[in-house]
């Protein structure tokens, strides 16, 4: 048995029975990282020593009979979630040496549960991108085909899970940044309802859209991670005070009585690949056979989703990223005569091209004379998009769709063509605009052998139905069992 191939659930069982120790498990995963991450490039920072110390502490706790489902489980963290005294770069030059003085709430929860933090994973700079190519630290390769992108922006976390360089990972999703890389890497990704998971300590990209969530090898592990990170936090004023159910408890329920909606407009999306379309149709058939009822629904404003998102997200980003001014933390350019020049040189040298593009688009959309036509208009269209979903959910429980129009594209293919890259986010953006939960589960492979994901979206705070549908689908298929040959 290769310890690094274990799921969280299986590793927990072995730890509990004392068949393995967390130190053995953590060392096995660190060895795996040493052996293959040179080829993949998933990690920005590997925290070997602290990981082994945490594993030792976990073993002691287990010895005393204190074990939670995550005790001693080695996990990877996207490099925009603050980890105390562990470098957090956002894959940006401007935070290259940033050492957070505190832990994000999700990290505090994981540590309290006894989890082991292996290190920090690569991403598009400040989470702006769909390929992880906009990292200003390194390039990440898709474990299924090293010439392709792993998806983004949580590409490092997805690649690390797919290549068994961690047992599970956290990412963040502002427009698909958990679901799309999960789809491209053949793993499970969950974007929770906005407000379900605290954003305290998550470096802000677009505050009304950002949400932290898990990337995992299967649905059960996704539910276990969600159990650990969900819940109200007084440090995040947008977190919602609600009891968190035990997501595991819903998995075994069948699909009888569930109605699934298929958005009519999604079939007409430009560039929808035939392999993706066939895999998703097949998945819908399987879910119908398992007892769910399937109906067609309409989301009439689908064609305006990308435009609305690419005004709202950059607008919020341009405001959030104003804090990087070279004063309190991060990079400062020394070549300056006055403070304005210091700001400009620091920000121009510190931010990469895509981040600067989005800051300009956002600043333009918010500037006097353009505000109503851009930010104001997009915020109104956002209301209409939300209403589309509300109406659809009056007649169905979940929506099924592709996650991305194609499987993973080649490295470099879209690097200089921002609009084409943005258009590929069509299926994932609306869950963020509407604040609803969305999930990606493996549902097939392209003719080239690349993974394809099925997206499941549900009503606000209805994660349990997503898990139920995903779990039933997973138990009746074996796409999630296939591993890339590295």
């Amino acid at each position, binding site marked *: 048995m290769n310890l690094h191939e274990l799921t969280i659930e299986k590793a927990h069982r072995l730890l509990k029975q004392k068949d393995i120790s967390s130190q053995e498990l953590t060392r096995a995963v660190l060895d795996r990282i040493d052996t293959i991450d040179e080829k993949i490039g998933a990690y920005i920072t590997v925290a070997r020593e602290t990981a082994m110390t945490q594993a030792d502490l976990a073993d002691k706790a287990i010895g005393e009979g204190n074990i939670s489902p995550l005790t001693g489980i080695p996990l990877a963290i996207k490099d925009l979630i603050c980890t105390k005294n562990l470098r957090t770069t956002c894959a940006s030059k401007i935070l290259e040496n940033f050492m957070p003085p505190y832990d994000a709430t999700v990290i505090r929860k994981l540590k309290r549960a006894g989890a082991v933090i292996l290190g920090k994973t690569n991403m598009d700079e400040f989470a702006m991108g769909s390929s992880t190519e906009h990292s200003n630290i390194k390039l990440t390769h898709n474990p299924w085909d090293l010439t392709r992108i792993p998806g983004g922006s949580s590409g490092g976390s997805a690649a690390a899970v797919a290549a068994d360089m961690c047992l599970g990972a956290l990412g963040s999703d502002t427009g698909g940044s958990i679901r799309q890389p999960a789809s491209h890497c053949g793993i499970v990704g969950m974007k929770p309802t906005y407000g379900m998971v605290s954003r305290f300590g998550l470096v802000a990209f677009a505050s009304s859209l950002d949400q932290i969530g898990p990337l995992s090898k299967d649905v059960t592990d996704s539910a276990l991670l969600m159990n650990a990170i969900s819940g109200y936090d007084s440090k995040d004023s947008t977190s919602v005070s609600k009891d968190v159910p035990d997501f595991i408890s819903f998995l075994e329920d069948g699909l009888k009585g569930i109605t699934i909606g298929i958005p009519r407009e999604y079939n007409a999306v430009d560039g929808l690949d035939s392999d993706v379309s066939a895999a998703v149709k097949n998945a819908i058939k399987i879910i119908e056979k398992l007892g769910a009822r399937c109906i067609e629904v309409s989301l009439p404003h689908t064609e305006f989703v990308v435009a609305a998102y690419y005004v709202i997200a950059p607008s919020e980003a341009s405001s959030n990223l104003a804090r990087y001014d070279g004063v309190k933390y991060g990079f400062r350019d020394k070549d300056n005569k006055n403070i304005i020049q210091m700001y400009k040189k620091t920000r121009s040298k510190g931010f990469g091209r895509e981040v600067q593009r989005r800051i300009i688009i956002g600043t333009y959309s918010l500037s006097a004379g353009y505000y109503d036509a851009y930010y104001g208009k997009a915020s109104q269209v956002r209301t209409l998009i939300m209403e589309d979903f509300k109406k659809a959910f009056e007649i169905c429980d979940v929506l099924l769709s592709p996650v991305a129009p194609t499987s993973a594209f080649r490295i470099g293919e879209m690097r200089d063509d921002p609009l084409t890259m943005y258009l590929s986010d069509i299926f994932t953006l609306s869950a963020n605009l509407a*604040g609803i939960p969305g999930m990606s589960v493996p549902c097939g492979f392209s003719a080239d052998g690349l993974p394809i994901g099925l997206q499941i979206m549900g009503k606000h705070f209805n994660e349990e139905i997503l898990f139920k549908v995903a779990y039933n689908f997973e138990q009746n298929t074996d796409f999630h069992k296939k591993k890339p040959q590295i």
Partner: protein
Amino acid sequence: MKITKEEVLYVANLARLEMDEGSIDKFARQIGTVLEYVDTLNRVDTEGVPPTSHAIFLTNAFREDEIIKHLDREAALANAPEKEDENFVVPKVIE
């Protein structure tokens, strides 16, 4: 073109970014393409539609006004590019 080079330079200044001459044309073209696409929003009738800035309905989040421990000064200053005693140091602001 949807956005001129001069407009990009104007907005860049507002955002405290410096554009280098060599890449400004390409940059303006890429941003122009995105803005042209965004104009498809004008086809949507939004007369009387309220804007949404937040997808989950929440009223003000209040908490008790209690004194709690925050980051101590040393930790808050630890990442400063330049500091002196208990302060962040910046270039001269007033000539």
